């Protein structure tokens, strides 16, 4: 019997929530044995102790098997088991400066999509004093000075002043990271002509994305996208086949190879008999581009970046540079994006993830370039402003939450509650607090959707995943309703939830092949099925739109399709059914037609049939709008009055 454990902890350290999962190799594959989530203030060892205790109480033999010990001590296992970790990057602020208001808006949008908190100013509107205040503020971590690649007169005349201003600020604040984008790179000399009392920042050219890789990938092959091509299909390895396992992970029979040796301090070493835990070294695709960000607080370099129009779609090249500057290598959101890419290749399906947390949100999509292709195109946008309780809470954000809320709040009271939600994100998670949290989450997703038109124009994905701490305590049917409310595209898709928050830590696995193998085993555990969503477009209001028959393994349903409503048909997880729909008029459901027959799979919420308008049409009056939301919500959340 091997003495090496066949288990590891997958840990996701969010800003509000710490999620811990125990993954073990049992029954011939990696399995999610237990998981839990708690406020980030909770002692981690206590959390892990609790998980092991639960597994031990439920199945002592299983714990002994995966821990490879006869009487495993919980405390010893907490210390010994390997840990696969991902973390949220704390939000950082960037000051965006430009010569014109037009350019500033464009740059602000890109910086926001790269996950920065953004403040900005333009020389044609703001005076140099105000611009200096922005860049000298203590909580400004970076400055982006940008212009068109061939700046017009309105920008060009301000560039010398802006260059001098930013160079002066960089001399005053050595920790400030400076990015010169597009035509602003001409001001590079401002940063090298310093006197003997000044530091001389090193100018570094940020690696532009490889445009050659974009040519054969349409249409969402962007700089923020990454391609995963399965040139060599993964070796199908049954656990217990050491040779194949070694070939896949590069381990030697004696233990991990030299290259992976550093990880052995945290990861269990591979043996000939035991399956190998994932390599827990630095992730391979840690950031879209590797930028020479100096260690510590000092950023003694000026990055020269592409302009706001470079890349496909426009701005994606600069976004990639800014994201690389902001995010840490093991960031959860980038990990989710990598895992989704691997999943899309593994399942050969289009997958979209919407993640909302305390310090930001993520929307990403991955899909094959075309039917039968082994190339996956993915794009992602991580935004700090997509937090459910943003740090920079504006009046517009408060109004957005109010418009999604089923409770009437005055603006100041709602502002107070949202700010307290930020300082205590797990506080009052029940009752009225749950409704507020849901409204705040929907407002955050709305911001994400508005910022990602390139994803919104795509067809409904095969699988849509809700992720992030904000959904942790929300009933599954309500999560599904929120997805249907916000991502309104005609089609049929599966809804799932990353309940155990494994996508982030699994994205930290360095090797793409190894990550895919792990996901292959864990895919059913990672994706908690919420159900399927049928969302037709073009339904006429007023009369019955037709009928739908759901033929399942254990039950059949016949539904009159009334426009303007949403229904949940019971369809348990693991079951599939055929939904035959006969509409009176032609509708769009992927294709245009009147008769459709689709395969749907079940989930905790069942099958959702959404016959509301695309986009949603709501009453103008606030109280009527609240009543409309409440009627839809109550249909999915019967416990709301408890």
């Amino acid at each position: 019997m091997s003495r090496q454990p066949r288990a590891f902890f997958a840990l996701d350290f969010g800003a509000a929530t710490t999620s811990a999962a125990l993954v073990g190799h049992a029954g011939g594959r990696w399995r999610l044995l237990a998981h839990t989530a708690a406020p980030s203030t909770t002692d981690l060892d206590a959390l892990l102790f609790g998980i092991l205790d639960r597994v031990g109480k439920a199945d002592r033999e299983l714990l002994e098997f995966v821990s490879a010990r006869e009487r495993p001590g919980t405390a010893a296992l907490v210390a010994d088991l390997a840990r696969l970790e991902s973390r949220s990057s704390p939000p950082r602020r960037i000051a965006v400066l430009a010569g014109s208001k037009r350019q500033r808006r464009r740059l602000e949008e890109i910086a926001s999509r790269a996950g920065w908190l953004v403040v900005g100013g333009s020389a044609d509107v703001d005076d140099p004093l105000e611009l200096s205040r922005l860049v000298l503020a203590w909580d400004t971590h970076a400055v982006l000075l940008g212009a068109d690649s061939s700046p017009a007169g309105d920008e060009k005349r301000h560039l010398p002043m802006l260059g001098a201003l930013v160079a002066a600020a960089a001399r005053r604040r050595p920790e400030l990271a400076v990015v010169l984008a597009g035509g602003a790179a001409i001001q590079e000399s401002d940063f090298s002509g310093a006197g003997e009392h000044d530091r001389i920042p090193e100018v570094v050219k940020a690696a532009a994305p490889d445009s050659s890789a974009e040519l054969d990938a349409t249409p969402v092959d962007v700089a923020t996208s990454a391609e995963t091509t399965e040139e060599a299909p993964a070796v199908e390895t049954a656990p217990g086949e050491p040779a194949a396992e070694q070939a896949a992970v590069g381990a030697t029979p004696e233990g991990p190879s030299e290259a992976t040796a550093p990880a052995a301090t945290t990861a269990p070493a591979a043996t000939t008999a035991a399956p190998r835990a994932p390599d827990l070294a630095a992730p391979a695709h840690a950031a879209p581009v590797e930028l020479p960000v100096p260690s510590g607080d000092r950023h003694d370099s000026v990055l020269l970046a592409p302009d706001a129009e470079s890349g496909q779609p426009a701005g994606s090249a600069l976004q990639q540079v800014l994201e690389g500057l902001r995010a840490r290598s093991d960031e959860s959101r980038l990990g989710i994006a990598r895992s989704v890419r691997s999943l899309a290749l593994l399942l050969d399906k289009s997958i979209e993830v919407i993640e909302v947390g305390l310090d930001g949100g993520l929307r990403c999509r991955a899909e094959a370039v075309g039917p039968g292709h082994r190339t996956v195109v993915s794009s992602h946008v991580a935004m700090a402003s997509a937090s459910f309780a943003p740090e920079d809470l504006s009046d517009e954000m408060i109004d957005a939450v109010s418009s999604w809320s089923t409770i009437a709040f005055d603006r100041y009271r709602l502002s107070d509650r949202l700010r307290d939600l930020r300082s205590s994100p797990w506080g009052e998670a029940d009752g009225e607090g749950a409704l507020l949290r849901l409204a705040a989450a929907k407002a955050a997703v709305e911001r994400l959707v508005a910022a990602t038109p390139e994803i919104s124009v795509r067809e409904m994905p095969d699988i849509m995943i809700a992720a992030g701490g904000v959904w942790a305590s929300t009933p599954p049917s309500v999560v599904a309703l929120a997805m249907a409310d916000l991502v309104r595209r005609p089609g049929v898709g599966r809804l799932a939830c990353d309940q155990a928050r494994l996508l982030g830590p699994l994205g930290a696995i360095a090797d793409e092949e190894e990550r895919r193998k792990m996901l292959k085993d864990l895919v059913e555990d990672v994706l908690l099925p919420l159900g399927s969503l049928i969302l037709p477009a073009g339904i006429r209001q007023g009369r019955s739109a037709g009928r739908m028959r759901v033929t399942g393994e254990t039950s059949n349903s016949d539904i009159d399709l009334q426009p303007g409503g949403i229904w949940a048909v019971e369809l348990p997880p693991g079951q599939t059914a055929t939904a035959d729909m006969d509409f009176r008029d032609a509708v769009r459901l992927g294709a245009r037609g009147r008769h459709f027959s689709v395969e749907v799979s079940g989930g905790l919420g069942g099958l959702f049939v959404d016959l509301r308008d695309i986009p949603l049409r709501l009453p103008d009056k606030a109280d009527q709008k609240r009543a409309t939301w409440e009627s839809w919500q109550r249909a999915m959340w019967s416990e709301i009055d408890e």
Partner: protein
Amino acid sequence: MSPKTRARGRAEAPDVPPELTRIPGRRILVVSPVVQIRLGPGDRVLVSPGQKVTAGMPIAERTCDPEFIDVGRLNGATNGNGKGNGEGGWKGSQQERRRPPLPGKWWVGGDDRRGRNARREGPRRLAGTLLYEINGRWSAAAGDRHEKVESPTSGVIVEAANCIGIAMKVTGIAIPAAVAGGQPTRGYLDVPRLVDGELRDTALDMGRSGAIVVAGGRVSAEALTRARAMSIRGMVAGSLGQAELRDLAASEGRQRAALHSMPPFGVLGLDGHQRRPIASPILALLAALAGREVAIITEPPLLVLDVVDVPLPELPRDWVRVRSGTHAGREGRWLSSAGLHRFRAGIHLEAANVRLGDDLGPTIIAVADLERFIL
């Protein structure tokens, strides 16, 4: 049940039962925190890193009405009329004056900048900080009205930079708060009698001038206005609403525009924005410190006590407080873990049995809604 108070020299680490560690801890005191005083273009520091400062000592000079000034060409060795003064000392050394003009360096307008016109009798003293240089010509943020910024507490300067700010390691200890408004300030701590946990506005009179008043669970905009008018230096409350903070910010804006500046005024919300009474251990601590010199710091929100030894409240290990939810503000004793419990709206959360106040029976409360105090 309210906690007793006794004098103690040092905080002791309590022996916490394992189940209690699931409840988020709230530290009552922090020792020697690093605080920040933010400055902007036109402002200069009067201290240097490593320097010890005492409460009331001028540490910075703020330009009240900074404008963007085209300074023109400056000589290499001096700035303007040779009266330059850079960061690194209040008086400025000869060596500092010999330094070439640099961004952030203190600049005093030369004769050509001392504008005279028919309406003004005296010369204007334009002073501020240099911003940047283009083609040999310098720009500055400068104005003719300046005010000294006094250190709200004693400590050691960690960082000091013109136009940016000052970071200072406080000598004493501090009570952390959740939200702050106004400016850093100092005064004697006044803990008046609270009626139903609140302070009546009429209690804010001239007799409390120079005090930092403990105002109970909530402070209203009217109370803030009245307190400023009565030369009260600051207020400490359990919560501080966003509406009140906006009113205070607007009032400060008007104050800055006025010619005669008033003493700085600050306000602290210990728990957050929604109404909650002050936690009894903290109220007991404040009551024990009444009359002592304290300071309100806004970044981060702190009530700084210029002392090292304070009377710490004696708390049972299982003393908890409800910080959010329907029972927010109530306190009691943790009895046991209640496991996963179904709460309102069908939400399942980890819970605990707590005996609140003088209740006869236990109440089941979500663990995330509770807090325990760490001394």
